[in-house]
Structure formats: C-alpha cells, structure tokens
C-alpha cells in the first residue's frame, strides 16, 4: 500500500515597511507591497492551483484527497486583497475531500518562547478556520515543521490526533519516513514525516535543468511512488503551495505535472491518496520516535539556524517575547495584534546570515538588501511598540 498524502502550506507574511528610528507612527506594515504580492501570488499560484485541484477532485471522485495548512495572517490578507482565493478554497473544502491543518495563527516561533502564547495562537487559528471554512483542524503542523517531543505532547493535550515533522536523516537513521510513528511517550497522537526526497523533487528540483532527472514527468514520479510499495504505507509530500506557479513557474510544466500525477499514481492498484487525518486513522504507528532536539524543514541543516542562527536573530526574538506580559496586561487589542504580527517567523528568516549554502532560497524571499537592514528595521518597530507600552 502506498498512500500519497499531499499537504500544501499556504502562507504570506505581513511584510514590514521601511521603519526608521525617527518614525513615530504605528503603521509597521507595508500594506501596499503586501497587497501587491498577495494579488500577484493569487493570480500566479493560488487561484489556478485551486482550480486544478478542484478539477482533479471532480475527475477522480473519492480517489483524490489533499490537505492544506493556511495561516491566519494569510487568510487576513486574502480577505482584504484576494477574496477569490478564499472562494476557491471554500469550494475545495465543500467537496469534503480537503483537510485543513492546525498551526499558529501568526506562523510564529511562539512554541520556543511562550507556551501560553503558543496555545492562544493555535486556538485563534482554529477559530479562524472554523469561522472561514467550518472545519476543525485535527492534525497539527508547527511553523516550518519545527518539531520535538515536547511539541507533540503539548498539541496532543490540545486534542490533535496527528502531527507533522521533517523526515530528517539525522533523526530517522536507518528508518523510513514512509511509516506512521508514535512520538516517544505519547498515546493519542501519531507522527507523519515528510518524505523530503520526493517532496523536494517537486518543490525544489522540478525545473532544475542541471538535475539528472530533469525533465520530471508524472509517469516517472509515479514510478518512484510505486517503489514504496512493500516498503512503507505513506508517502508524505509536504511543500509550500507556492511551488505551483510561483517557485516553479507555469512554463516549467508544473501544472501539467500535477494534472497528470493522480492518473499515473492510481494506475497501480495498491496506491491511493489520503488526507493526513485519514492516514493517521488508517495506519497504526510502527514504532516510537524520539526527537528531543528541535528539527525543521529549513535549509540543509534542518534545524532552527535559519531563524536563530546569529546574535541578531536571537536578540530580536528575546526582545520581542520579553514584551508579552506588558502587551497582554495593557489590554490594547491593536497593540496585541501588531505585536503578534511581528512574531511571524519570516521577519527572523530575513535576518539570517548563513547565505552561503542556502543563499538562493534566502535571497529569493527576502525583501531586504541585507540581513542587517532587516534587523534594524525590525528593532525600530519593536522600539515603537515599547514606547506605546510606556504611554
């Protein structure tokens, strides 16, 4: 049996505007740029991809299932600037074959700094998903697949039945990501691991002409999935939804690839597609997996170094979470929302200085000329938050 579990991440950060130390207003976010990017990505990726998925569901009926995780900050932006994205997502959810995962509303690193804040954001996200789509998330993915044992215990306590993590070599060792695992010491929650080779073949290598497997066709990819048969039960393909049309442009053939993939996967009688909660309910965990240290899906290190790799990042995060108590005590809802939007992990990703191995990805997503500029800008905003607290 090989059950293909697609999970697509949908996220857009609220990018900061150029905020100098001399600025005193409280508009930290660049609404013009955020709207522009949101509309552009909607048009290049979200809308055509959603239409494609809808078509696949209509075509294959109960044989095609997918999962999404949509951040609260992304939904807010769609509401303001690209409502057609939400409409098409609603149409997908209405088919009953789409699952929505739970995560932090603000795509934040809150779990690392404040459990209380983390819980509040997960609940806020679940409420937003319920209000927008009428669903209740049952499987959890943390920001950038940041994961350790503690996290699985914590979200198990919040009622989740499954959780996602990176199938990193250094935690798996000889084991395969193509099975369902049990986090060590947990009873009610199962662990789904990303098959990073197959996922990254689509997400990163698809249009790479130097790649020995280029051009990647659905037929070939389905063949690789078939090879999992007898060697595992699930193939977890986790990736950014922006892979379709934004990271891999339409002219690379990525949409055609996706259009033809179900046909070739389903040609093998033992293959099928599943949502993540269905996979968790179908397959019993084969073993316990002990992951005491934080892992993530980022960069070659698969650790926290993309957000916490230098003194600036660590300083910015500490200074930010140091304000939790006064911000919450102050009772100003706008200030709380601003402070929370500053928690989005992207702000710290922009401050990353280890460009040498992962330079391309970091540069592509970075609205700043340098990590130093992003740190300065962020700290200026934070200074202003502090001054609002003093008022």
């Amino acid at each position, binding site marked *: 049996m090989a059950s293909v579990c697609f999970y697509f991440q949908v996220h857009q950060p609220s990018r900061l505007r150029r905020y*100098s130390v*001399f600025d005193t207003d409280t508009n930290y976010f660049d609404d013009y740029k955020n709207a522009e990017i949101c509309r552009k990505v909607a048009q290049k990726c979200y809308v055509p991809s959603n239409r494609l998925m809808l078509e696949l569901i209509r075509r294959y009926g109960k044989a095609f299932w997918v999962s999404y995780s949509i951040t609260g900050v992304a939904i807010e932006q769609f509401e303001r600037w690209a409502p057609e994205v939400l409409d098409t997502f609603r149409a997908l959810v209405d088919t009953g074959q789409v699952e929505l995962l739970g995560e932090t509303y603000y795509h934040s690193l809150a779990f690392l700094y404040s459990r209380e804040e983390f819980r509040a954001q997960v609940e806020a996200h679940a409420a937003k998903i319920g209000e927008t789509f009428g669903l209740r998330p049952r499987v959890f993915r943390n920001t950038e697949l940041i994961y350790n044992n503690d996290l699985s215990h914590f979200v198990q306590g919040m009622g989740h039945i499954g959780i996602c993590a990176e199938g990193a070599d250094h935690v798996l060792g000889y084991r395969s990501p193509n099975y369902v695992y049990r986090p060590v010491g947990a009873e009610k929650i199962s662990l789904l691991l990303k098959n990073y080779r197959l996922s990254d073949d689509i997400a990163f290598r698809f249009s790479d002409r130097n790649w020995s497997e280029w051009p990647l066709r659905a037929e070939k990819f389905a063949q690789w999935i078939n090879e999992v048969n007898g060697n595992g039960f699930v193939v977890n393909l986790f990736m950014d939804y922006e892979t379709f049309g934004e990271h891999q442009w339409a002219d690379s053939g990525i949409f055609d690839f996706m259009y033809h993939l179900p046909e070739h996967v389903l040609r093998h009688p033992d293959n099928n597609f599943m949502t993540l909660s269905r996979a968790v309910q179908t397959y019993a965990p084969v073993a316990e997996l002990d992951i005491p240290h934080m892992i993530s899906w980022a960069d070659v290190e698969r650790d926290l170094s993309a957000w916490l790799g230098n003194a600036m990042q660590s300083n910015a995060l500490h200074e930010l979470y140091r304000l939790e108590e006064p911000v919450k005590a102050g009772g100003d809802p706008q200030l709380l929302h601003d402070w929370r939007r500053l928690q989005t992990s992207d702000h710290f990703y922009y401050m990353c200085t280890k460009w040498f191995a992962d330079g391309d990805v970091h540069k592509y997503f970075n609205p700043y000329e340098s990590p130093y500029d992003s740190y300065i800008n962020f700290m200026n905003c934070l200074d202003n938050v502090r001054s609002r607290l003093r008022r």
Partner: protein
Amino acid sequence: MRILMLGWEFPPFISGGLGTACYGLAKALSDLGAEILFVLPGGAADQRLDRVRVVSAAERSPGRTFTYWTVEGLEHVELVPVGAAIQPYVTEEEYLEQRRREERAAARTAGESAQTRPPALDPMRPTSLGLTSGPTIYAGDLFSEVHRYARLVAEVARQAHFDVIHAHDWMTFPAGLSVAALSGKPLVAHMHSTEFDRSGLSVNQRIYDVERAGLHGARLAVCVSRMTRDLVTSRYGVPEAKCRVIYNAITVNGEPVHQQCQRIEKDDKIVLFLGRITMQKGPEYFLAAAKKVAEVMDNVKFIMAGSGDMIKRMIELAAAMGIGHRVTFTGFLRGDDVDRIYEMADLYVMPSVSEPFGLAPLEALSHDVPVLISKQSGVSEVLVHALKVDFWDIHEMANKIIAVLRHPPLQKTLKEHGAFEVRKFSWADAARQCLDAYQEALQGAR
C-alpha cells in the same frame, strides 16, 4: 613574465591609497614569480628607510644608468625612482612643509601677499591638487612632472627587458603610451580612480584627455570595480570588452591589535570618519547624519580623522550645526595612531560620494570595527557584511548609525562576519587576474 610597472607612489617612498594598492599588487605578483620593474617619480630615497636597499646599477646590469632599489620582502621587484624634481619624502608633513617653504619662497620672489597664496598641495592624491579650481601654476607643475616622468620612463625602458607595461592611473598613462609606442609591447591601463570620482562634474579637461588617451591606447583597461568600469565605458567611450574588473584587496597580517590604550571616555560611543576630508569623501554628509544621531542619543562622539581641503569648512559646519562639542577633528593620523583610533571606534563610516574601490572599510574590518559604507563605492559591490547607504541619504545613515550603537548584537554580528569576510580579499587573487590580463594583452598583440 617581466612587467614594466609605472606608478606614482610606492611605499615606503610614499604610502597613499594608490601606493598601498600598488605595493600589495606588486608583492603578490612577485610572490607568484613575476618580475617587476617599478618606475616611480622621485629622487634618491631616504637612507633612513631601513627596508630599502640600493643596488648599484652596475651590480645588476652594466648597461644601466639609473639607480635601482630593492625592498625587503619583494623578491622580484626592482624600484627605479626617476626625476629629481620631486624630492623624496617619507611623510605627508614633511612633504607639506617642503611645499610650504617653496611656496613662501615663491611668494617672496613674486612679492605676493600671504593671503592670496594658493592652498597647499595634498601629496596623498596628487591628482586632486585643486586643479579644477586652483591656480594653474600648480596644474602646470604637475603636468610638466607627468611629462618629465614619461621621458625618464622611456629612458629606463630602453635599458630594460619586459613583456608588458602596466600603468597605474592617469599620471603614468603618457609614459605608458610612449613606452608602448617605442617598444611595441602591450599597455595595460589600471584605473584606480577617474576624474569624475575626484571632481564630480567639474572635470579638469586636460586630465580627462590624458585618461581617455591612455584607456584608448591601452590593450586592456583594468578597473577596480564595476562602478569604475561603468564610468570607463560610459564617460570615456571604452568598449566593455576591453575592460577587466579586478578588485583591490588587503593584507591581513594577523597581528593582535594594541590593547594597552585607554578609551577617551568609557561611556561614549565613537563613530569614526577616517580619510581625506575632501568633496569626494562626503564629509558633510557624515556631519549631517551626526547631527541627526546627536538629536536622539547623548553618549556619542564623532571623530573625523584626516586632513584635506575641506577640513576648515567642516569644523565651521560642525560648529554651525551646534554639534561642535560632539565632533573631534584629529588631523592626519598614521601608524600607531590609526590602530588606536580604530580600537576606540564602535563604527566606521565611509560616506563617499564616489569611491572607485575604497580600501579603508576593509582596514576597519580587519581592525574589528564594523563599517557603514556608501553604495557609491566599488567595495560595496563585493562586501556583504557591511551596512550600506546612499551617500545622500543622511536620514538612513543616521538610522543605521543609531542601530549599531544601540544594539550590541548587530555590532557583534557585523564584526564577526566582517572579520571573516575581509580575509576573502586577497592580493594573490588580484595578481592572478592581472597575470591573466597580461596574457590576454600579449595574445592580442600577436
């Protein structure tokens, strides 16, 4: 490979920015086994310079009539100072003093009053001697020196064997062109700075013409940055295919910095400007940003180290802005004083209006001082771990200065990465690229 290298400065005969670059390049070429005959203007060198040794002409080669020198550590380099017009000088002060004496003598002879005396020459950059606005008598002097140098170089060249001619900056271009014409060897013209960098838009036509002739007459033009290459192609009409960008470098000696000195005042943060105080270096933008910083921070001092034709105006400007007590002018610093000032500094700022390369930020980084540099500099094309700003954007300049002073993790990250990155700039790489350029020039010659 034997190279006839033509330069205007070479330490220890003089050590301005151009001299430092020529030294670094010549040493690296020498280490790679290339032989260099370096001709520079000057008379007999000072015997007190212990690193320099006279080689009698006869000892080297019987046919030679010039005095040859060798410098410790430069195995394959011979120096030939030519022309008695410029006395050798070790320091700027001595040189200036000498010029002042000459000026006074000239003024006495001419019966002129001291008030109408033209500004003193700046030896660090002979090309910016107020040639654009200053009295033409000095321009005349410099041009006649340039041509006397060219004649003498031709003499040296007749007695020497070499494969290519490598000329550094416009003062040596006439010499390079004439030797190329006489010997048939290819000329490589090296642009360390253009007239547009030095003078903005009030260009001295004569200098421009010399630069243009040199660039067009050369087989290849070596530019110290893409910015310089773009000037060379757009302003001088040199085809891009003829240009090679070879960045300057720095010698990191790995010696520990001095620890014994005391900070001026322990509580004060120090922001440093170190360079010539001239239009090209943008000192007024530094002061304008300093004023903005001073408005929001108390414990900051600004140091302007260096001399130049705008120093008086800058002192007055600082006073007029009401930040006179926050800005210290040290005058020209050298040796240990430079090390000490770097050690005190929390941030080095280079607000240059147009900087073909900009070695100083690399020096600051090698002294563990983070840098804020203008985007209008060649070094900003290659330096990653630096803060960058448009020279005119004093608002952003102040924003970044404040950030470095307020947030120690920023300073720390810049320092750590910068100290590492600066080791990437190696003269050996530049020398290898020069050797490639020579090969290309030679192939083109056949």
